[in-house]
């Protein structure tokens, strides 16, 4: 880490201001308590404090050298004692030398200066202690900031990775079964086989391209879902019908891409696959308070024994919405009589 007293202007300015106050205090003590002439007091205070001020900046390097992470406490303690003694000793030696050459012939002051050396030495130690304490705080604080920054970056990465894994993936079972239907249609009904090939291609293409994007329009999502349902309709003939009740204000709504697909797959899997009766799949969208409310529902055979494993798609949607909108409970699942309904709430 570089010396903040050199690189950071704010820190440097604060440092100067503090020293200016020390200068004033020092001056006042000499002038008013010890009755030393004003000029002598000014010079004494100025030189001594100026010297320590310059030395104080370089103390950063002793702190940086004695990093708390690298050495044990005892070693650091003794290093600092030695540094403090040297710094303080150097300080009073230089100060004494300058003052004896600037103030000549003032015996009272000279006598005072010699007597005060012990005190000055101790004050030097005190300065040393305060400065390195401040240095350590600065290091700790900036490390802490860095850590926070890194943590935030890490969180963003984790979130991105999570979103990636939660994204919709085409069910291979669906693809192979559709291909099998096409294979069968090529013999019995080539025109329909062609139609289905095109639909399957469109669905795959838009699914692949949508997965690149984080969000898309609800109307696009619905179109994609319709392609999917059309393909399933070929496979399951007249086993289901699709009803759409989407208010116009919903169509332009931005939603996480491929958010509806798992809901329709769920409806097909647990409604149509497991039922011998005709199933109605209904999509509705409207406003409710600060949310757009999108619901997919289907009737199911209440007699059929539910297979577990359902809900992985829904759980993924829950987690995805939570990550994207930073809100819990954006998905509700209801089972009323023979109606299964999943509702998702998109914050406005």
């Amino acid at each position: 880490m570089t010396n903040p007293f050199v690189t950071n202007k704010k820190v440097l300015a604060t440092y100067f201001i503090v020293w200016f106050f020390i200068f004033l205090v020092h001056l006042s003590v000499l002038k008013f308590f010890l009755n030393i002439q004003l000029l002598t007091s000014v010079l004494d205070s100025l030189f001594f404090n100026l010297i320590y001020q310059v030395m104080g900046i370089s103390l950063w390097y002793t702190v940086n050298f004695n990093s708390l992470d690298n050495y044990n406490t005892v070693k650091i303690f003794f290093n600092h004692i030695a540094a403090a003694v040297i710094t303080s000793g150097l300080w009073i030696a230089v100060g004494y030398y300058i003052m004896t050459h600037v103030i000549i012939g003032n015996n009272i002051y000279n006598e005072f200066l010699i007597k005060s050396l012990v005190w000055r030495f101790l004050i030097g130690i005190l300065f040393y202690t305060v400065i390195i304490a401040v240095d350590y705080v600065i290091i700790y604080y900036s490390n802490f900031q860095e850590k926070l920054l890194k943590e935030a970056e890490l969180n963003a990465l984790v979130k991105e990775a999570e979103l990636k894994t939660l994204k919709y993936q085409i069910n291979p079972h669906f693809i192979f079964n559709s291909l099998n239907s096409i294979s069968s249609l090529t013999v019995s009904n080539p025109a329909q086989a062609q139609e289905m090939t095109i639909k399957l291609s469109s669905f795959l293409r838009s699914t692949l391209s949508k997965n690149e994007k984080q969000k898309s329009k609800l109307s696009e999502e619905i179109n994609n879902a319709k392609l999917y349902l059309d393909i399933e309709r070929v496979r399951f003939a007249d086993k289901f019908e699709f009803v759409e009740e989407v208010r116009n204000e919903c169509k332009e709504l931005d939603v996480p891409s491929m958010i509806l697909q798992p809901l329709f797959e769920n409806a097909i899997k647990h409604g149509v696959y497991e039922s011998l009766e005709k199933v109605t799949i209904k999509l509705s969208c409207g406003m409710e308070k600060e949310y757009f409310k999108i619901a997919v529902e289907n009737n199911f055979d209440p007699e059929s024994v539910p297979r577990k494993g359902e809900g992985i798609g829904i759980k993924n949607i829950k987690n995805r919405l939570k990550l994207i909108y930073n809100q819990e409970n954006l998905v509700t699942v209801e089972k009323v009589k023979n109606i299964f309904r999943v509702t998702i709430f998109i914050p406005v």
Partner: protein
Amino acid sequence: MKEKIKTIIIDDERLARDIIKIYLKKFENVELVAECSDGFDGLKQINELKPDLIFLDIQMPKLTGFEMLEILEEPPIIIFTTAFDQYALKAFEVNATDYLLKPFSAERFAEAMNKAIKIITQIPPGKQKLDGLMKVVEKRNEFLDRVVIKHGQKILIIPIEEIRYIEAQDDYTMLYTDKGNFLKQKTMKYFEENLNSKEFIRIHRSYFVKLSSVKQIEMFEKESYRVLLHEGKQLPVSKSGYQNLKEIFK
């Protein structure tokens, strides 16, 4: 050739059945006697028509292909047709002649058919299972969620939640549920492999108990324990069973 080979197609998709029908036309000594679109119907037709050969999808409404086979007493020769690759592995063993992954070609279909015809025409019935059959095994990514039972003439599907405890009965197991006791033609090992061990605890060589039906565990004699169920029934706990319980309650 004395008579035609009787065949049933069991698949919930019409188009999937169609392609098999189309492919079957090339085999003159094969007669399609029924088409079924779910496992229950399949079961009924097999028992009534006694086919020699069935084409069986796995994922179907009501009863999966595997569940259907579990309760079939004398299964015919089976050719699986499925899009599920994951079913081709591990844990749940069924004898099958071949396994067709959808979509399949006419050549691949003919290969499977020739294998089946060879077995049906050359090997006397009864011995068929022993020779030349491959094992199709279901891979369970999840724990068992329901058990299919043949109870008299009825087929029962029992959700796993309804089972209170399971008791070994020689090579079979007795399931004690809220609705009565049912014999299942599966071993303790099967349940050991397919039950969620956090939900069902093996407390004894002969017992699994559902955790939520346990009222308390009590000391019986020194170093010996028993489990008391809510219904009042007591089950013995073996040493390793006690370890299993301790693991759960840790």
